C-alpha cells in the first residue's frame, strides 16, 4: 500500500515548487548579507496577478513552515480585502495557524504598514513592495540605477529632495520615504507612512521586502541602522496627529485614518486594527514612538 502522503495533495506545501523555493531562499540569505541591496529573483507565477502581493507571497511561502503562526495585514487592517484573500490562500496551501494577534504571530506579511506594536526577535515581517527602486523617480533605466547603486552615486536623489524643498517648503515624499541602510544603500521602505520609517532602524525583527512584479527582494536585518534621508537644516518628520484621539478606542499616539462622516464632520480611528483592539480592551502594547525634531 502506498502511504506517501505527498501525492495525496493537489499542490506542493506552500504552492511554490521546492526548486524555486531554494532559489528564493538563497537570494534571501544574500539580501540579508547585503542590507538594502535589491537582489533579482525568479518571481514565479502565482494564482494572483503580479503587483497584487505576489512578492510578499513568494517570500512568505519560502519562509513558512508547519509550526508558523501567520498574520497578514493590508493598510494596518486584518480585515481588508487583499489581506483576507491572501490569508485564505496561504492557509489553504500550508494549513498553518493564522492569527490577528500581532504578538502571537511568527510570520507577518504586510501591505503598507509596520504594526505599531514592537516586534520581537522571534518574528519576521514581509512587506509587499510595488516599486523597489527608490531612484526610479530620478532615473528611468534599470541598468543606470543599478550602476548608481553600485557606485553609491545618489546625487540625483539628493537634488530631487532639495528641489522638493525649494518648490514646496518641505520634502513632500509621504509614503515610501527613501532611507539609507547601514550607511550604504538607499532603499525604499515600501509605501509605509513616515510614521513607521524610524521603527525599521535597530529593530529586533528581520524585515523582508519583496516586489513580485519587479522581481526584486531586499532585507533590513535586525539591529541595522536605517536613516531617512534628511539635510542638516531640514530634518525628517513623521506625521503629526497633534491631540487627535481615536473615535473607537479613545487612544492617541498611533497612525490614524481619517473618516469623513458628512459634509462638515470627520473622525479619526487607529489604522492598525489589532493595536486598536488591544487599546480598546485596556492592554496597550509597547510601542516605539518617534519625537519630531524642532527644525
Amino acid at each position, binding site marked *: 500500500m502506498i502511504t506517501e502522503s505527498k501525492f495525496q495533495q493537489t499542490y506542493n506545501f506552500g504552492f511554490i515548487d521546492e526548486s524555486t523555493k531554494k532559489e528564493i531562499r538563497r*537570494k534571501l540569505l544574500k539580501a540579508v548579507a547585503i542590507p538594502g541591496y535589491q537582489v533579482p529573483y525568479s518571481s514565479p507565477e502565482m494564482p494572483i496577478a503580479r503587483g497584487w502581493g505576489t512578492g510578499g507571497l513568494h517570500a512568505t511561502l519560502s519562509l513558512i513552515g508547519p509550526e508558523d503562526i501567520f498574520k497578514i495585514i493590508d493598510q494596518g487592517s486584518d480585515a481588508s480585502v487583499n489581506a483576507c484573500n491572501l490569508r485564505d490562500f496561504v492557509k489553504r496551501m500550508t494549513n498553518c495557524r493564522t492569527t490577528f494577534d500581532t504578538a502571537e504571530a511568527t510570520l507577518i506579511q504586510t501591505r503598507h504598514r509596520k504594526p505599531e506594536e514592537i516586534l520581537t526577535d522571534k518574528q519576521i515581517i514581509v512587506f509587499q513592495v510595488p516599486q523597489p527602486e527608490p531612484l526610479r523617480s530620478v532615473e528611468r533605466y534599470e541598468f543606470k540605477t543599478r550602476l548608481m547603486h553600485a557606485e553609491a552615486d545618489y546625487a540625483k536623489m539628493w537634488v530631487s529632495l532639495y528641489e522638493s524643498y525649494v518648490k514646496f517648503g518641505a520634502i513632500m515624499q509621504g509614503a515610501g520615504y527613501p532611507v539609507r541602510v547601514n550607511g550604504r544603500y538607499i532603499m525604499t521602505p515600501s509605501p509605509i507612512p513616515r510614521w513607521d520609517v524610524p521603527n525599521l532602524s535597530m529593530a529586533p525583527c528581520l524585515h523582508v521586502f519583496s516586489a513580485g512584479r519587479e522581481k526584486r527582494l531586499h532585507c533590513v536585518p535586525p539591529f541595522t541602522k536605517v536613516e531617512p534621508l534628511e539635510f542638516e537644516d531640514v530634518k525628517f518628520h513623521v506625521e503629526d496627529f497633534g491631540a487627535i484621539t481615536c473615535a473607537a478606542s479613545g487612544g492617541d499616539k498611533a497612525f490614524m485614518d481619517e473618516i469623513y462622516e458628512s459634509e462638515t464632520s470627520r473622525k479619526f480611528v487607529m489604522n492598525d486594527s489589532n493595536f486598536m483592539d488591544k487599546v480598546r480592551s485596556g492592554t496597550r502594547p509597547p510601542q516605539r514612538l518617534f519625537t519630531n525634531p524642532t527644525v
Partner: protein
Amino acid sequence: MLRETVYNEIFDSQRHFRTILDSMSRPGKLNRFAPIPLTPPAGLAKPAAYVGLALLNADVSFHAELLGPEAVAYLRVNTHAQAAAPGLADFFFVRGSDGGAAALIAEAKLGLPAYPETGATFVFQVSRLGKSSNIGGLQLELTGPGIETREIIFVEGLNPDLITAIKTRNVEFPLGLDAMFVSEDESIMCLPRTTRVLVTNL
C-alpha cells in the same frame, strides 16, 4: 548508500533554512539544527550536509575538493548541483582547520559591483562553537548589522589564517564572501560580509 532517503525535501529543508536565515540575520548567534539522521561520507560533516541539502540545487555550483571525492559525489547526487572550479563555485565546503582553504578564499568570486549577491558562500566545518571561554580556539569579537552592540563567540578548530583571508577579501563592501560555521554538535553561526571581525585572543 550514497543517496539520502531519510531527508524530507520539503519540511527538513524549510526548518534548516530558517535556522540558517536566523543565524545569517544575527551574526554570532548560535543556533542548533533540528537533527536528521543523514549519512554523509567521512569528509563531510553532518551539519554541512544539512546546509548543502537545504540550499543547493541544479542552478548552482559548489567546490568541496578538499573534503575528498566522496563528499563531492554525495553533494552532487543529493542536490543535483554541479562541482566547479574555485573561481566559479557559488558554495564552498571546507574544514576550518585546513589552512589550505585560504587559497580558495583568495580565488572565490566576490560578485560584481552591480550584482554583489553573486559572491560565494563558504561553509566551514569546525569542531566547536560556543559562548563561553572554556571552549578553546579563537575568540571573535563581532560588530555590524544584526548585532545590537557587540557579540563574542569562541570557535575551536578554525585556522586564524582563514579569518585573515576572509577579512582581506571583504574590504570592498558590497563585494565579498559570506561565511557559515558549523560545529560537531550541529550548531551554526554565520558571518555575513557586513560583520566586522576581530580576533581578540591571538
